[in-house]
């Protein structure tokens, strides 16, 4: 038995796995640099980071819920709703910047809280609950826009700054994204909240027995998801200069794929802020590169879906041989897991 002082072993497969994120990102980066002429331009890099900031915020909120053992599929439509809402606040209702932003964000937090309440306190299954909420958000969004039109109009400059302005040389959206990731990283990896959240995700019974308030923490996880999705939605509207109802769908698959890519590359098979970050980078580059190369849009779906499936499969089988050879053992293993071996 390995008596090491850190939990990390240095065998080759594990090394590969630990750095597989950066390796893959680098590989994809190089690939597109070679294949697409305009890839390595400053302008294009900006595109990537803008997309990445929004995707990153969505995916981060999603990750937090996954850590807690649940799943939130409503994040993209929630973000779209808040984006449209804030546009309406500014354009139709003439809110001031601060009031508009605050109100819109509060709405997002409120919806997240509602999700959290139903799931954590009423015991409803998070998958189907968030599917329902997702469609409710979508419906409301379309209702508010009278059928899916964008909400155009004059928006306060201060608001436009969020999506289009710069803090120094860093785009504001990236700044916000980095801030959120930094804070989340600290909260999840350093503070008790994150640690307890992982405990809940791994084994909520033991967590409860250890005195952790499982319901409350799960609730907070969904509030966080709601908050981050709202910020993403705000940035989208700010960047586009108008409230767009249909942007929601675009980020759903990508956000999920990014988070699970992060799970796949983690040596401990767990969701994490850092893992999701790498997933976001990877997917943003791919999204950008595919667009640049003029490849058809649907390829993105296939790639993103493929990454998702691949991420899960890679945990189970390293090679195809492994797949067939160990099929029977895998069935046996799951039999015994289901039955609960007594040792």
């Amino acid at each position, binding site marked *: 038995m390995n008596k090491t002082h850190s*939990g990390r072993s240095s065998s080759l497969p594990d090394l590969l796995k630990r750095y597989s994120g950066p390796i893959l990102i680098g590989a994809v980066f190089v690939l597109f640099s070679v294949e697409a002429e305009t890839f390595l331009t400053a302008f294009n890099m900006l595109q990537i980071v803008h997309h990445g900031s929004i995707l990153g915020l969505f995916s981060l909120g999603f990750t937090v819920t996954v850590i807690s053992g649940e799943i939130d599929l409503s994040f993209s439509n929630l973000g779209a709703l808040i984006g449209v809402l804030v546009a309406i606040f500014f354009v139709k209702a003439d809110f001031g910047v601060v009031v508009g932003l605050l109100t819109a964000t509060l709405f997002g937090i409120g919806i997240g809280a509602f999700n959290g309440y139903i799931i954590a306190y009423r015991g409803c299954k998070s998958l189907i609950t968030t599917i329902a909420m997702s469609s409710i958000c979508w419906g409301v969004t379309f209702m508010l826009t009278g059928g899916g039109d964008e909400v155009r109009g004059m928006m306060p400059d201060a608001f436009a700054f969020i999506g289009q302005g710069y803090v120094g040389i860093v785009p504001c959206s990236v700044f916000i994204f980095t801030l959120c990731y930094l804070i989340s990283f600290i909260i999840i990896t350093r503070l*008790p909240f994150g*640690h307890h959240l*992982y405990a809940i995700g791994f084994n909520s019974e*033991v*967590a409860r027995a250890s*005195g952790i308030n499982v319901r409350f923490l799960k609730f907070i996880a969904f509030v966080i998801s709601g908050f981050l999705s709202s910020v993403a939605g705000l940035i989208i509207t700010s960047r586009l200069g108008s409230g767009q109802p249909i942007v929601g769908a675009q980020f759903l698959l990508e956000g999920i794929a990014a988070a699970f890519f992060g799970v796949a590359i983690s040596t401990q098979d767990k969701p994490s802020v850092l893992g999701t970050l790498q997933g976001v980078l990877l997917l943003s580059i791919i999204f950008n590169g595919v667009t640049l190369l003029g490849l058809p849009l649907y390829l993105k779906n296939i790639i993103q879906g493929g990454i998702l499936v691949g991420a899960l499969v890679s945990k189970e089988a390293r090679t195809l041989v492994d797949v067939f050879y160990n099929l029977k053992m895998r069935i046996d293993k799951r039999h015994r897991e289901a*039955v609960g*071996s*007594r040792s």
Partner: protein
Amino acid sequence: MNNGAILEMSGICKAFPGVRALKDVDFDLMPGEVHALIGENGAGKSTLIKILTGVYTKDAGEIKVGGRRAEFNSPRDAEDVGISAIYQKPNLVLEFNGVENIFLGDEIRGRFGIPDWKKMAEKAHSLLQDLGIQISLYVPIHQLSPSERQIIAIAKALSQNASILIMDEVTAPLSSKEIDSLFALVRELKKKGCSIIYISHRLEEVKEIADRNTVLRNGKKVGTLEAKDLDVETLIRMMIGEEMEEKFFKEKVPLGKPILAVKGLSGGMVKNVSFEVRQGEILSFTGLIGAGKTELAQIVFGIDPKEKGQIYLDGREIEINSPRDASVHGIYLAPEDRMTQGLVLDMELKENVTLNDRDKVANRFGLINTRLEEAVAREFVTNLSIATPSIRQKVKFLSGGNQQKVVLSKGMFAESKIYIFDEPTTGIDIRAKKEFYVLMADLVKKDAGIIFISTEIPEVLALSDRILVMRKGEIHKEFTREEATMEKILLSSFGIKGEE
């Protein structure tokens, strides 16, 4: 009237539907003592402990901690007064490492509320050093062995400064060296004023470590012995009682040819087990908890993989790789945990009965003949006296004893040749138990063979033709019914070969 006891329980009563688990039990604990709680399975030990840890609420009686009355409505209440429990199956998060598990929920905070892992690691290390044990605290504990995990669980309880520590069968997965270290730690804890309630089947351990011993039987306290007054015979007598209530004995049935034969079976913790079961025979497996009885059953039934050895049915060698294979060969397992393994609680009685062998009530198109199925179900309800409002009742609404009868019906319906019963009478009241024994005896009259697994020695003695005592995955000794006594079995259970 506090005589300095740190814990006083008086007149504790607790009843479940159909079962009176505890009747007027008194128990007290002095500071710095180890007080053992002894009794057969079902005697009420775990119920008492669950009341003390706030998992159950008592029906009657009083509990005083440190002289003050205490009410436990939740596990937190118990923790708050310094009561902590460790069980046979540790309450740990497998993906976390040792340090994280020890301090789960009670992390030592540094500045700004950030957990100070360095300090926790130091404290964890010192805890382990007190135990004289070396374990890697930085690997996820699913990489540790079961005994190491147990030690982490103990360290966890200790880190919470428990003044009253309950140890419930904690030594089951430990080696003798680890047990020695554990006992050394226990003595350290005593010196520091910690008090321990120690529950174990293993009388040798109890003798070694306990200052006082309280024996429970059938939910009542039989007596309390000082350590110096403790000897095996007295204890056994207290555990099983002097009175021989209407003793049930299985009739002598002429034994037929061997149905099931197992040679050199190994897998997991099971090592080199060989035995055979004949028609009309009840073969019992007994031994301490964790001896490997259920593991053996699960290999024979195809749940766990067999690594070595052969299984023969009616003389022919067979391969059993899944419960389906076992069923096809006529082997039926009534699992230990009937609620999650034996029955589909949300399905109706009649559906559960036919679940193992649906072909029997189906026509050639694969459709179930409802009338036939209902007739079958009714027959079992009548013959086995199952108390249920209807055959369509969902089995989760039945009482334990009746649920077990449904489990039995399942096997009988599949016309099994070999029945394996794993602790079938847990959580069942006396009357239902007796009914069950009769049913088992009837089964073997019809040429079936039964493997009966139980840690309740009295029922083993009453029912078996032969008894195999298991210990640490192997068969330790075999007894025929005539030569078996409770004492011999108990002695064999903890590895002492008797005289003669």
